[in-house]
């Protein structure tokens, strides 16, 4: 009964489609973010002009619902043909059968590995790649030029300089309350990445071992955590919750320094003061690290036959140098291919330059449940700041909690 109905419908549709030069329609899904949607509209227009037999329909959902919608669509058997996903969701998407491996004949591994930044390996499971990014993100230190000039200091290059600049730019009222922060403290923002992939490494540790298990429950992890919480407790140059969020404090001109990502450039563009960007500070030995992340595009598990071919063509186009150029100019995110990203003009750009340099030595955390793992870092800092727990106990508890999430994710 149902089959007959579907067959009839298919017959009807194919009859209509004959008139339209046998066009294939594929669906592309991403979350709503103005500049991303605009960039994708441009890409689709160019792609359709080059491939008149393929039409691409863009569907978007609010970020908060996005994963749920993808999952629900799969349960209903009507997934997208090309779908955007955060690299940290790959395990969930692969295990859930939401995306299919990229055909190595169309996307040769050697080419991917030589032309993209090495962080693309986070999309590889076993011998297969499950997606390719158009753009990548990294972190950098934003500074408020007006506040630095007022204090007569230069943007910091090392952690010691960071402390000095933060101290010089912090303003306090008569009771010692911070009225303008030296540096923002916001573990719910990007600080947990800074702690995980940068501070721990600069203190001689690694956040995870080769098997992906938690490895920061040691002296290095403790030193990194102490450095972070000391900003509030010992140095009094920042306050968790100051102005509600780190980025809000910076935008309001009430924080001299903040660590944030490329994706914040758009929001900071109309800040009513002059600001700049430098690489994340190095440690005393000059060691630098960074955290890079990206949204990749994968091919939906339900795409087959001519839709699959069309989806592959589309994915090839949106990970091409041309598409990355458009994405960079519309969204501001960095190209995922080295040759497109590391041009002289880009490296000399005062804003793009520091982020691009960060990409060279960036790490990409293998997340199992990003929100829950971030929560363990938030709680770890809160236990020290709000409950007075010792650094060592707090880090041990965080390590146990995060390992439990990783174990659960592997099941």
């Amino acid at each position, binding site marked *: 009964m149902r089959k007959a109905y579907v067959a009839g419908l298919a017959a009807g549709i194919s009859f209509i489609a004959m008139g339209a030069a046998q066009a294939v329609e594929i669906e592309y899904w991403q979350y709503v973010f103005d500049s991303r949607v605009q960039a994708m509209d441009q890409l689709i227009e160019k792609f359709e002009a080059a491939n008149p037999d393929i039409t691409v329909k863009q569907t978007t959902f609010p970020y908060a619902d996005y994963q749920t919608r993808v999952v629900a669509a799969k349960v209903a058997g009507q997934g997208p043909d090309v779908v955007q996903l955060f690299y940290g969701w790959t395990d969930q998407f692969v295990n859930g059968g939401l995306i299919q491996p990229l055909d190595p004949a169309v996307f040769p591994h050697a080419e991917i590995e030589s032309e993209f930044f090495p962080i693309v390996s986070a999309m590889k499971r076993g011998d297969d790649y499950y997606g390719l990014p158009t753009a990548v993100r990294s972190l950098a230190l934003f500074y408020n030029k007006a506040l630095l000039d007022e204090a007569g200091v230069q943007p910091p290059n090392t952690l010691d300089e960071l402390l000095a600049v933060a101290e010089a730019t912090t303003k306090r009222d008569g009771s010692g309350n911070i009225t303008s922060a030296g540096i923002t403290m916001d573990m719910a923002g990007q600080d947990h990445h800074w702690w995980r992939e940068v501070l721990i490494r600069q203190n001689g540790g690694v956040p995870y071992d080769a098997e992906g298990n938690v490895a920061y429950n040691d002296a290095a992890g403790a030193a990194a955590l102490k450095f972070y919480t000391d900003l509030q407790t010992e140095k009094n140059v920042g306050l*968790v*919750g100051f102005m509600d969020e780190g980025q809000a404090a910076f935008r309001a001109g009430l924080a001299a320094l903040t660590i944030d990502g490329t994706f914040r450039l758009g929001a900071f563009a109309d800040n009513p003061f002059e600001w700049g960007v430098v690489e994340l500070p190095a440690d005393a030995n000059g060691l630098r690290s960074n955290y890079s992340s990206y949204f990749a595009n994968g091919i939906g598990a339900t795409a087959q036959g001519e839709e699959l071919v069309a989806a592959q063509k589309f994915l090839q186009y949106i990970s091409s140098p041309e598409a990355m150029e458009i994405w960079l100019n519309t969204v501001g995110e960095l190209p995922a291919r080295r040759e497109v990203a590391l041009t002289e003009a880009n490296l000399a750009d005062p804003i793009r330059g520091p982020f691009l340099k960060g990409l060279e030595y960036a790490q990409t955390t293998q997340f199992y449940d990003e929100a829950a793992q971030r929560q363990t870092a938030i709680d770890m800092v809160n236990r020290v700041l*709000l409950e007075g727990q010792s650094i060592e106990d707090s880090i041990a508890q965080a390590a146990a909690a995060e390992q439990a999430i990783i174990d659960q994710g592997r099941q």
Partner: protein
Amino acid sequence: MASANALPQTGPVRFWDRLNISTKRVIWAWAFLAVPIIFYAGIRFYPTFQAFWLSLTNWDLLRPAQFIGFANYQKMFADPIFWKVFQNTFLYLIIGTPVSLVVSFVIAYYLDRVKLMHGFIRALYFLPFLTTAAAMGWVWRWFYQPVPIGVINGFLSSIGIAQQPFLRSVDQALFSILIPAIWAGLGFQIIIFMAGLRAIPNTFYEAAKIDGLGDWAILRKITIPLLKPTTVFLVVFSSIGFLRIFDQVYNMTTNDPGGPLNATKPLVLMIYQTAFSSYQMGYAAAQTVVLFTILLIVSLLQLYVLREKK
């Protein structure tokens, strides 16, 4: 119209005609009632029973659900966060309900006697109830900020009191959220209490005055006992409201939902996170069953305690 249509089909017409008018009425009534009943059964009862079943599985949306017995419940009862959340939920209930009822009764009691601009004052009290919880949550969230933007801390600093962490404290956060939650519900409770007060016949008060009873005695012997149906309704209504608290908590703590350190997390928020952030639908269903049981027990208990004694 009906008879014209009915003529060719003799069978059913004869049966329908044989029914007397009251039977026909009942059938018609049921025909209309059936629509909401079927809708309600499909939208409410079926998912409720489905949730009981899901709580015994490990469904994660992606893979088919597998029966795992009571493993979700074992995990939940062994989880210290669940008990913390359980405790928070009851704190919202046992502080929120009595405080909001007493405050709204006192306001209604005195407002009832105010003649000057009565409607205007009543409207002012009702206004917060009309405001979206999300918008209200955000405004209060900024009230509670540290200096230089937090209004409350700005005031405290100006009179020489140390600034308070409010939402950034494991001890103060829950109360900081409870205050706007109580305030938001006051308007509705005041209106209901005033309606209850108006429903008490004036003759009772006149008789009491003639007998020489004071205000306090009138309140204790007449007003409060006669307000019982209103009170029962409001106790049940507000208890369910506090047990289901979510909007205020979520909006006032979005960066660290239910935090800091789960100090403000109610059961509903935990369910939301388990289901729609971690996609552990089975585990979330088990938590939902617990919430359902609590709501049921609390409601039945209150109805029993406050029942009419005959």
